[in-house]
């Protein structure tokens, strides 16, 4: 998920996803994989499923 988002928004860094970041990626170890649990970035829109699916 992180790699896909970075390809869509190359200006993001690991800090945007860290303790003080505005984006929270999560994996509940339930077999469902990584997901966006929170997206509060002030200028960038949350990627759509289509955008994410289109990233190789």
């Amino acid at each position, binding site marked *: 998920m992180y790699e896909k988002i970075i390809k869509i928004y190359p200006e993001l860094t690991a800090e945007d996803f860290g303790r003080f970041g505005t984006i929270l*990626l999560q994996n509940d170890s339930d077999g469902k994989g990584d997901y966006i649990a929170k997206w509060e970035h002030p200028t960038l829109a949350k990627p759509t499923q289509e955008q994410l699916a289109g990233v190789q």
Partner: protein
Amino acid sequence: MGTLVLNGATSGSTTIQPTDAATVTATLPGATGTIMVSGNMPAFSAYLTGNQSISATTYTKVQLNTKTFDTNNCFDSTTNYRFTPTVAGYYQVNITLGGSNAAYQLISAIYKNGSAYLYTSVPTGTGNGNIANGSCLIYLNGSTDYIEFYGWQSAGGVFAGGSVNTQASATLVRAA
């Protein structure tokens, strides 16, 4: 030696006092005995058996799949990896999370009911493999409240397996 059973009220306090307090001493426990203040105090300790692969910058639940002990069978080590104690009160909760590379930033997180309750962060380059230790007191209601343990690493990799690297524990320290 008999057994003293106190029946009746389930709240308030009970005083044990000799009939002649001036001349009789009550000693608890005896010279070789043990007094158990509370026999139903939940406590558990569990650890991650093998390395757990994780994605970069993603809070990932730690799969604490091996129990060291679990006094009241309150920790789920097979499906949800969560502690749901059956006694309401204040719990001392601890996590030690081992990362895979000192070049990566590492965060351990204690979650209560699905939300972060405590973060502990270790910056990059702090040694030969980072370890993030977290500890706090949390109130849990003894029925629906639960805690889980998550970790985050700046560049993915693994959570290091083995009880000396990644483990968590909790115990009741004061009933509600």
